[in-house]
């Protein structure tokens, strides 16, 4: 029998980037289960509604980006190991939403991920997740180990 889980959001004041004024951040610990991705995405997206993102970006882009990042963290990062977790940290400042997703894996080299829109790759069934994140976010960064992605969306 599967034990129901609860996603808990912790809010606390964050030290904003120098130009960003007041900021709030919240944290979410997500189990390594693909079935929870939709619920985790919904929860984060609901907390970003008042972020200043355009409705389209808050409703759609943020959800797709986060779903991709969580899926990558669960499948490739944590290799579906139920003993491992994925940590999500979201910082809402006046003009920027920053989403960090970190897994417990060994990391990867994002520069080695091929472009899925190359003619010989378009018909593949996989390999589009990171590409979509890069297309939908304003900036994407990784830590040195490659197990944490930082996705930045600007409020225009």
């Amino acid at each position, binding site marked *: 029998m599967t034990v129901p889980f609860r996603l808990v959001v912790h809010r606390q004041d964050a030290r904003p980037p120098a130009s960003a004024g007041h900021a709030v951040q919240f944290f979410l610990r997500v189990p390594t289960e693909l079935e929870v991705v*939709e619920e985790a995405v919904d929860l984060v997206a609901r907390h970003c509604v008042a972020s200043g993102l355009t409705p389209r970006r808050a409703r*759609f882009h943020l*959800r*797709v980006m986060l779903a991709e990042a969580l*899926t990558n963290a669960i499948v490739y990062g944590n290799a579906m190991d139920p003993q491992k977790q994925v940590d999500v940290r979201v910082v809402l400042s006046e003009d920027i939403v920053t989403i960090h997703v970190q897994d417990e894996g060994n990391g990867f080299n994002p520069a080695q991920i091929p472009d899925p*829109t190359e003619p010989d790759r378009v018909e593949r*069934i*996989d390999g589009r*997740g990171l*590409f979509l994140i890069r297309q939908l976010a304003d900036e994407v960064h990784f830590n040195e180990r490659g197990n944490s992605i930082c996705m930045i969306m600007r409020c225009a």
Partner: protein
Amino acid sequence: MSFTVRKDDRKGVLVVGVDGQLIVGNRHELKQKILDSLESGEKKFVIDFSRTGYIDSSGLGVLVSLSKKIGEAGGELRLAGLNEDLLTLFELTKLDTLFAIVESTDEALAAF
């Protein structure tokens, strides 16, 4: 999230609606529904996205896989009801070149 299936007997087309998201957590359900129908002899399919929130890359991957399998079986797949956001995903990934995409289910049915 759920999937609805109805048969348009006039055109002999199976119309599958995606209510909610098509993502990593439910993509296999859609795939299995359509593969079961393909095995039962259905050849013409429309997937209706007019009630869909978002699709992730796993969902896109399942659509690519289904397109191949339906094509190999001599069938045809059309995608209908994609809003501007969803269409953007197909354009960004160039999958709009791979699929027959039409505005509505009615249009898809008329084209069969």
